[in-house]
Structures are given as C-alpha cells and as structure tokens.
C-alpha cells in the first residue's frame, strides 16, 4: 500500500497563454503524497504554489505533465470533474468571503445538496462537518451567517468543504488573518481531521510555527518548481535552503541556528519549544 494518493509529474502551467500577459506559473513540478500525510507547501509569493494546488481539484488542468489523484488521471479528457471535486476538498484563502446563505446550516449544506443527496444524508454530513470544526450542530445550524465572528465564519466555510466528505483536504493559508485563539483552534481541528478521520491534508502557509506544528513533510517551492522536500526537521536543519529561499523559520529554530553559529553543538531541527529547551538545556551547566 505504498501507492501515493496524489502524484504530480513534470507539471507545467502557463497563465493567459498566447496573450501579452503570458506568465509561466509552473515549470515542471514533481510531488508525491501518501495517504494520511499532512504536507505543507511553502515558498515565496508567486512561486506557483496556489496554481499548483488548484490543479488538485480541477480548477486548472495540466498543460503538460501528469497529475494522478486517487487513481484518477487528470490529463484524461473524459475526466469526471464532479467526482474529483468530491474527493479533493479545496479551501481557498479567506474562505469566509464565499458564504452566501443566510443560515449557517444552509451554507454548509450547499455542497451536499448539489450532490443530490437525500435530506437525511445531507443532515448527517452537515452535522458531522460542523462537529469536526467545533460548531455545535443544534445550537449553530439556524444562526445567521453574517452575525458570526471572523473565526467562526472561517469554520463554517471549512465545514462547507468538509461536508463533501473529501479524502484529501487542500487548504490555502488556512489561518491567515485569524487571531491567536482562533488560529490555534483551527490548527487543532485540522490535526484532528487527519488523525481521527484519516484525511490527507495538503496546505500552503507562510507561518512556520504553523508548518512546524502540523506538517509531516514540507515541499519548498521557488520559481515554479519544487526545490526540495523533507520532514520539518530536515528542512529546518538546512541553513542553505533557509537562506537561499528566504524561508522564515520558527523562532525556536532561529535561536538554535544562532547557537550553532556561535559554535555550540545543537540539533537545529528541534522546533518544538520543549525540544528546543531540552536541546539548549544540554549546553548549560548542571
């Protein structure tokens, strides 16, 4: 069972092909993601990461190269886009903007209703999705969407995608603009979805604390290509990659790198506060 659930091979993409505004967004990306993983994609604005993830649920189609998702070949002309979109849930940046129904329950039920599921099943899915993101079903389903706080709206939007029951969840900057409390809650929910429901998670982020907290593996992208990948520990211990691609590092890693530069023998990949503390503790006298 080592077949990857998602694989990308030599993928290229050009925006506004054959117009003066032509812009090459992807220049041969390769990527393999195994079922049940949490993978972070990081890189500078304009490195192509948004274009890449929009390939994952049929917003863009490969111009050259291949994308295989759960056995579906996205280059096939007779691709069933609907079924692809049910397997891959895509949550865009600031997804709260897309809420349009007046009531929370209705907005989350939009996708399932579009799938022509029976009412009973729709309700079940909405209930499950709401509980997964931490919105109590009975209390919240008849609330007005516009009266919610920013963090709650984002949870509703996430639930709206989860109600499609995707196998793979793709998130673009899931916590951008949230306050620390909502941020932490949301990250916990994503982790829970992965651990308890086995959903494969792929997310784009600029926040390295968040990447360190969630990701099993990191892909670093630059200039329309993936330049390297590895576990957070592997990436964060590599000062060349960090410098060359201007990857911000968690404060813990920055501290360890500083110590390393000063000639102390520390493992620079220990990004959790407890691990970093232990690492530094070793340097100190008893």
């Amino acid at each position: 069972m080592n077949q990857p659930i998602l694989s990308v091979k030599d993928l290229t993409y050009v925006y506004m092909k054959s117009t003066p505004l032509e812009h090459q967004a992807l220049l041969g990306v390769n990527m393999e993601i195994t079922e049940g993983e949490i993978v972070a994609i990081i890189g500078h604005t304009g490195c192509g990461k948004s274009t890449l993830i929009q390939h994952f649920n049929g917003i863009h189609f490969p111009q050259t190269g291949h994308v295989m998702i759960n056995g579906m070949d996205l280059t096939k002309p007779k691709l069933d886009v609907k079924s692809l979109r049910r397997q891959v849930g895509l949550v865009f940046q600031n997804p709260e903007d897309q809420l349009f129904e007046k009531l929370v329950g209705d907005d989350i039920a939009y996708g399932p209703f579009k799938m022509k599921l029976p009412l009973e099943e729709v309700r079940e899915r909405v209930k499950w999705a709401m509980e997964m993101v931490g919105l109590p079903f009975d209390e919240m389903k008849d609330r007005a969407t516009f009266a919610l706080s920013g963090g709650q709206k984002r949870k509703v939007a996430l639930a709206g995608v989860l109600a499609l029951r995707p196998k793979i969840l793709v998130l673009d900057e899931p916590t951008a603009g949230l306050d620390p409390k909502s941020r932490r809650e949301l990250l916990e929910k994503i982790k829970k979805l992965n651990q308890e429901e086995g959903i494969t998670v792929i997310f784009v982020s600029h926040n390295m604390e968040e990447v360190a907290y969630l990701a099993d593996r990191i892909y670093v992208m630059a200039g329309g290509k993936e330049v390297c990948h590895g576990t957070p520990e592997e990436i964060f211990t590599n000062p060349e990659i960090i410098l060359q691609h201007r990857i911000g590092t968690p404060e813990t890693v920055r501290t360890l790198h500083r110590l390393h530069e000063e000639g102390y023998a520390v493992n620079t990949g220990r990004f959790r506060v407890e691990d970093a503390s232990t690492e530094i503790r070793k340097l100190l006298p008893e």
Partner: protein
Amino acid sequence: MANEPLLQVEDVSYSYKINSKETLQVLTDVSFSVQKGEYVAIIGHNGSGKSTLSKLLNGILVPEKGQVRVKNLLTSDRTQIKEIRRTVGMVFQHPDNQIVATIVEDDIAFGLENIGVPHDEMDARITGALEAVGMSEYRYRPPHHLSGGQKQRVAIAGILAMQPECLVLDEATSMLDSYGRDDVLAIMRKLHENGMTIITVTHHMNEVIEADRVIVIAEGKIAMVGSPREIFMRQQELESLHLDVPDCSRIAKVLHQEVSSFNATAMNPEEIVSEVKRLTHVNQEESKS
C-alpha cells in the same frame, strides 16, 4: 513647558448599538497617555475592544463617556478634527481597502490635497514618503499590481507624507505574509528611531517586543501595562486572555526553572544566545580554576 503628553485617553467608555434596545459595551473606563516619541503596543484578542480603542485615537469614533485629547485638542471638538487627524495618522488592517487612487503617487497625494499642501511642496513630500517605505520605484504603478506588503507600505507612505506626529497601526500586519510583515515592522522600527511616536494595535505577541510599553486590553478594560519583558513574565495571565507568549520567552522560562541562574526574562533569540554564552562562559572559567 511641562512634558505634555501627545495623546491622553481619560476614563473612556464606548458601546455599540446592536439594535434599538440592546447595546454592547466594548470599552469601560480606559485611561492612559502616550508621550512624544514613545512606541506603545496595544494588544488583545479579537473582541477585546482594542480596535475600537484605536479608532478613538483620531476621532473616527468619539467616546461616549470620558475624553480623548490629542495635543490638548478634544477629539469631540469637530472643528479641530482635521488638525487631530493630521497629528495622528492611521494605517488600517486591509491593505487593499485604504488605497483610493489608481496610481501610487496619486494615492499619496490624496491626503496632501485634503490638508491643502501647496502644489510645489507635494512632489518633495511624495518622494520622501516613498523613500521612507522603500517604494520609490513603484511611484507610477497602479496599486493592484503590488503585493499585500507593498500595498501596506504605500498606505503607510500616504500617511507619512502628511507628516503626522504619531502613527497608529491598527492590525496593519495581520493580513500580510511573513515577508510583508517583516518589511512593515522594519519600517516601524526605523520611524521610531527617527523620533516618530508609534502606537501599534495587534494580536501578535512577537510584534510587541520592540515596544517601550505594552497595554493589554481584555473585555474592554486595561488588563496589564508594562514593558514587554514585564508582560511576558506573566505567561499564565496572558494565556488566560488567549494571548501567546513568544517562543523564546517560553524557552527562557523552562530553562530558568531548571537552571535558576538562567535569566527568565530573555525574549528573543539574541538574548537566549547571550544567556547561554554567559552561563557556559562562567562554567568554563570555573572549570579552569
């Protein structure tokens, strides 16, 4: 001439009307003052009232009870509002929603035109403001081609050109990616070094490290005031207010518990490193002797 504060907030309360009957109290009896040249951070989680507070500082909102003075002008005095707003400039959260014009230089000119700066003076002011934020080469560009961080820098330039004495940043970094945020924070640092009074409103703790003073707002009241170092020491209280402590402060705390001579108030990588150096150095000295 006594040292008159630039900004005085005195017993301010404020509430919003939810509908004809109910109101929501967002601020209760808040008082503080800001001296010229100070760097003050106001921090609190969403709904704590910090954004309302920032909007009271330049008279966008007027206190229900109490008063706000800018250089001794009352913000409730609508005849002085222009003077107050040219003294206290304000940058908002969403970079896209504060740019008015279709060309960067026109947008910076917008504020200057409003306060009646003579035409001959404008050019120099625009050049200066763009230089201060490092956006000179974008002067003739349309704003929608800029990144979020660049737009925010243009917004700051638009305020700087008006030559305010105090700059209020209302969650100005929260929509930016990490590079954009670093750029904006660097600009704030530079402005402060050049004597600008800065008030930053944020929910990110690692943005307040450089402030002279931190004011923590919770449920419409001032919960804590102090230097960043003092505030970070009160980790548990902060956590109960849903606020994070920078990772380095947490590391320092852990280390202090195990090695009591480790300074628990270290709050950034440099300070941790120098503490490690100090202690290992002492240790080497000891082992030598």
